[in-house]
């Protein structure tokens, strides 16, 4: 029993520590940056993310645990932390010009974004339910504020309040679940839970606790039937915030869910697998069906993000089957990358077309875009095809890996639901494309360098990775969970 913190404790979460210190320093540095030059804050924030990303990549391949097993560094966490930090960079890039155009430029934006990324990274690394809980709050609270960033606009205020109230409500479920699990097993660490569970302690309490945990995470990743907040929040929040939160919060939520279920609840497979399968099927069906009737692009992408939560959830269904688990985890990770890349691109296009006061957000505003701005329209087409899962895009490759893993796990019906709902989704994604190519219109597009850079880069990635998916999939396959 050492009285001092081990260096290995600190190196396990070094990227998160560096980012925390950077965010605190940024808070102070921001005071000295004059009001017209808040762009510097964005640059400094991006620099912090790059430094943290560097450390993450240097640490790649190493595994360790810290703080008596409360946090873990493994291939899984390296992969997802890198993805989260890149998401943070895209979030800063999209915000850079957007917040100035909308008159929202404030230094706090970037500090809060960094804090949120720290929460996400800790959530990926957590292997103790208390750390999961606190990291989840650290992820969420800055997002509540960012959603309400445009306090002068009533929709943004509504988004912030709604997200805050429902988010707190879902945290309640999570904490109650943690309390029940602690009551059943006498431990909050995953290793302690699994030891107690395999020794055969009362499993009813444990099962209820695990189910409540699933409800709490279900809210965060917007799975049906816990998705009600998503469209309103995504629509009301400033678009650059929506882009970041729809990718980042989802990645972190799924990572924590996967780690909890795979490491702490392998004994509950019989009870939880049917629940997860039903949740995935409901989410795919619900998200895609409601999206059909949307006319606002932000709401459409919100329902699309719900539907994609369902696809990603499919990767969890065979978690209790040791033969299929590694493949399905890799497929889930690959799909998270595919979703993040495509999603940032699509939101980048939305930002390029958005006007002051929430104008330029209807699908009819995209009419004639191809004749006005060809690269932008082509990029949007690529993103829509990728969200459908149409070749040659990364979305298609991701769905292929995902469906294969689910079929290997013996859930053919779930794969069929996935394919059918993808076909349904083609209707509403292609409507956007048809509007851009075949309707008359005079859309106005913005020309901020970093927004254009984001959608351009993600469009290229969407295409290129679909032709050479192997390196990424190989990396995802090596990103295994560290057991105790």
């Amino acid at each position: 029993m050492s009285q001092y913190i081990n260096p290995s404790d600190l190196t396990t979460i070094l990227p998160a520590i560096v980012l925390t210190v950077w965010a605190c320093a940024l808070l102070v540095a921001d005071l000295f940056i004059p009001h017209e030059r808040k762009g510097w804050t964005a640059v400094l924030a991006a620099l912090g993310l790059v430094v943290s990303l560097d450390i993450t990549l240097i640490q790649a391949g190493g595994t360790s645990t810290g703080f008596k097993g409360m946090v873990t560094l493994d291939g899984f966490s390296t992969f997802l932390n890198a993805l989260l930090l890149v998401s943070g960079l895209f979030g800063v890039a999209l915000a850079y010009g957007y917040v100035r155009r909308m008159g929202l430029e404030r230094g706090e934006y970037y500090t809060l974004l960094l804090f949120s990324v720290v929460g996400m990274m800790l959530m990926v690394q957590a292997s103790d339910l208390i750390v999961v809980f606190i990291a989840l709050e650290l992820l969420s609270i800055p997002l509540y504020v960012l959603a309400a960033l445009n306090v002068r606009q009533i929709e943004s205020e509504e988004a912030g309040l709604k997200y805050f109230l429902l988010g707190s409500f879902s945290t309640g479920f999570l904490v109650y679940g943690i309390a029940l699990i602690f009551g059943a097993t006498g431990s909050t660490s995953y290793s302690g839970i699994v030891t107690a569970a395999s020794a055969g302690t009362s499993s009813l309490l444990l099962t209820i606790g695990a189910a409540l945990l699933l409800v709490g995470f279900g809210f965060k990743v917007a799975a049906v039937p816990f998705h009600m907040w998503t469209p309103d929040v995504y629509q009301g929040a400033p678009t650059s915030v929506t882009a970041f939160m729809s990718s980042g919060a989802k990645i972190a939520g799924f990572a924590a869910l996967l780690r909890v279920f795979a490491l702490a609840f392998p004994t509950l497979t019989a009870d939880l697998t049917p629940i997860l399968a039903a949740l995935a099927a409901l989410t795919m069906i619900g998200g895609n069906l409601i999206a059909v009737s949307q006319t606002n692009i932000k709401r459409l992408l919100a329902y699309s993000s719900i539907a994609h939560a369902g696809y990603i959830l499919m990767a969890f269904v065979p978690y209790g089957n040791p033969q299929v688990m590694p493949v399905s985890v890799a497929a889930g990770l690959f799909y998270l990358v595919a979703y993040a890349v495509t999603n940032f691109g699509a939101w980048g296009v939305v930002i390029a077309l958005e006007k002051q006061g929430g104008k330029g957000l209807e699908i009819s505003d995209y009419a004639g875009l191809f004749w006005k701005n060809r690269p932008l329209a082509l990029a949007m087409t690529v993103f829509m095809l990728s969200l459908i899962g149409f070749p040659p895009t990364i979305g298609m490759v991701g769905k292929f890996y995902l469906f294969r893993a689910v079929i290997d796990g013996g859930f053919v019906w779930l794969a069929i639901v996935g394919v059918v709902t993808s076909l349904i989704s083609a209707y509403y994604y292609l409507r956007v494309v048809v509007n851009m190519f075949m309707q008359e219109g005079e859309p106005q597009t913005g020309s901020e360098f970093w927004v254009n850079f984001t959608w351009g880069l993600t469009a290229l990635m969407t295409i290129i990775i679909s032709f050479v998916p192997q390196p990424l999939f190989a990396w995802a396959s090596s990103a295994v969970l560290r057991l105790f």
Partner: protein
Amino acid sequence: MTTAQIIFLVVAAVTLVSAFMVVTTRNLIHAALWLVATLFGVAVTYALLNANFLAVVQVVVYIGAIAILFIFAVMLTRKEMRDQGPQLNSAWWISALLAVLTFGGLVGMLWGWKGMDTLASEMPVGFDSVSALGDALISPNAFVLPFEVASVLLLAALVGAVYVAFNPRSGDSRK
């Protein structure tokens, strides 16, 4: 009278006077500060009763969090620090009656209680829940990581709250 009794009487008097001032002062900030004094008096009473943990929690939660929250809320949201309206409404005598009855009931109940004039048994040697708690919070073998992350969380929440409640450029446009 023993020293403990003298301390108790002083503390009880301070607590009661402060509590009275909370509801009678017209300045909201002063009311919040009197509330801090009241809560501190209660904390000292706990400490006198050997309930160290409760005393610490009283200071940390009620003074450190809730009373400070009141002060922040008043300072960030109100321009007018003074309460101009009447301090009593027409039903004041009902509340007064209820308060007197409750007090009388409590006195009546406690009058015959044996515990009033017997001393509590001594604490076992080495019994100190507070230092065990403190150790657990900052020991690397226990909860130092969640503890530190929670402080980062509070910083983020503070920045966010100040942003939302005190946005100079939104000014009066929302009234």
